């Protein structure tokens, strides 16, 4: 029972680590996937945008869009307005015709495209999270939207409205947040990129390939530190649980330790037994934590499929395991050394 409880408690920080890492990976992969779905080759962001998680408000003059479209080799440019709602969710204002041309359009699961100013498209994950269906009213940004269609997730955004309507609501008429550019031929992406950077030095202009590569945990401020903190908590919990558990085990087995000593077991042998048991608890906790991380993913996908995505990241299993085993070994050292130092006569007399 003691061992089972220890494994359970050790499994908790492993679950925490794997859930955090899984959420980071899942949400970035989802964002990456949706960016890829736009079909653009180049992205131009406002000068205040600092990272993939920093979504700037509309700061680029909309007039840039036709200007960019006049550049050689530019097939199409599309201005998009971003309005954050509940992070990481955002409503995007787009030109539906341009979006269809650039990306091939949304795949409609039900309903139809934007037809009226109050129409909003939601993706299937958001619809599931908010229990929405076509014809429902959705209140966002102090505005009552009419759910016109439900689209398959994986393109652009979860919430899409008409650009002009969103500009009006945001008091940002004539401004966009991002401009996506499609080039006539892939060979010309670098040529267009260089030209845009030269002509518009105050904006952040990158290829979509580079932009999408920025969607990794190392690029997000604080994530690495946060992961380290959670891992440290894992070590501390693993240490405390194993220390307590093995201390109890040593107390319960004092007589057995005395027996082993009477048979000639060395201090190293006794310490080895205690460490081996602690490592076994650590391995058990790791396996349980991995199983629990699947439960976390199921829970997240069931409760908040649109807001949070969690991926299973097997590459982190050995990392979480090593963190746990480190904590467990550390926790077993004191009880192990205490057991190894037991006086055999006193241990044999222990009732």
């Amino acid at each position, binding site marked *: 029972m003691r061992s089972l409880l220890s494994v359970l408690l050790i499994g908790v920080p492993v679950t925490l680590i794997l859930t955090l890492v899984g959420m980071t990976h899942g949400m970035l992969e989802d964002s990456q996937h949706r960016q890829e779905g736009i079909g653009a080759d180049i992205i131009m962001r406002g000068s205040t945008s600092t990272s993939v998680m920093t979504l700037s408000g509309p700061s680029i003059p909309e007039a840039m869009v036709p200007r960019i479209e006049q550049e050689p080799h530019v097939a199409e440019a599309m201005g998009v307005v971003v309005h954050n709602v509940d992070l990481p969710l955002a409503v995007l204002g787009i030109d539906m015709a341009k979006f269809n041309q650039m990306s091939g359009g949304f795949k409609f699961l039900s309903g139809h495209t934007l037809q009226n100013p109050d129409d909003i498209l939601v993706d299937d994950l958001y619809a599931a999270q908010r229990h929405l269906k076509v014809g429902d009213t959705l209140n966002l940004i102090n505005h009552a939207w009419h759910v016109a269609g439900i689209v398959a997730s994986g393109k652009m955004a979860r919430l899409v409205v008409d650009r002009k309507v969103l500009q009006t609501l945001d008091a940002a008429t004539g401004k966009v947040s991002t401009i996506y550019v499609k080039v006539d031929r892939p060979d010309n992406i670098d040529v267009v990129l260089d030209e845009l950077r030269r002509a518009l030095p105050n904006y952040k202009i990158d290829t979509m390939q580079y932009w999408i590569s920025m969607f990794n945990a190392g690029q997000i401020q604080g994530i690495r530190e946060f992961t380290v903190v959670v891992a440290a908590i894992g070590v501390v919990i693993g240490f405390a649980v194993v220390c307590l558990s093995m201390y109890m085990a040593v107390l319960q087995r004092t*007589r*057995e330790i*005395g*027996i*082993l*000593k*009477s*048979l*000639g*077991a*060395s*201090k190293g*042998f006794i310490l080895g037994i205690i460490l081996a048991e602690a490592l076994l608890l650590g391995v058990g906790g790791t396996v349980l934590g991995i199983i629990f991380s699947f439960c976390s993913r199921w829970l997240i996908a069931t409760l908040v499929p649109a807001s949070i995505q969690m991926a299973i990241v097997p590459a982190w299993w050995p990392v979480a395991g090593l963190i746990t085993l480190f904590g467990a070994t550390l926790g077993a050292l004191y009880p192990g050394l205490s057991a190894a130092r037991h*006086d*055999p*006569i006193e241990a*044999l007399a222990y009732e």
Partner: protein
Amino acid sequence: MNSGDIISTRDLRKIYRVGSVEVPALRGVDLNVKPGEFLSIVGPSGSGKSTLFHIIGGLTPPTSGEVHVGGENLAAMTDAGRTRMRRRTVGFVFQKFNLLPNLTARDNIAVARFIAGADGRPDAQFEEVLRVLGIAGRLDHKPNALSGGEQQRVAIARAIVNHPAILLADEPTGNLDTENSKAVLEILRDLNDRTGQTILMITHNPEAAAFGHYTVHMRDGKIIERT
């Protein structure tokens, strides 16, 4: 130490410290045991027989005096040295059997071999001993499924599996009924007769003591008589 003695003590003293109080347990014990002897040690509680047993078995060092076991001077040994000595020179049989409760009888015996660094199955001579002990059919049972007599026989098997020079038995019949006590004592005597195993046995029971070749009487931390 006389040549030929397997155990030899000279002016052996042991003082336990309880807080600031010193409690002498042995007050100068001189003892010589030759290989193959079966010696019974008797005496009232507090006479020092268990302390003598623990020192000869390398479980605790003496405070002063000499103690040679199997040609080694235990008084000069470190804790690690005494641990090594316990592995190969002595085997213990306790009143409370002291089997590891989660292991089968077979594994209890195997643990002693493992700790001693022996590998493989016990030798043919040991298999014969198991038959003599009458536990060959009970080896796959855990201690709680064995009777007291069976447990003590497993403990004897464990104590001699590495062929120690000396078998130390501390009240081996103290927790057994008359029938099982007699069986265990006969096993010890048989072991001594067949293999020449040196045995030191602590007992309160004069009838049990009579199974040995000699009896050493202790009182107040000293040997007062050898009969």
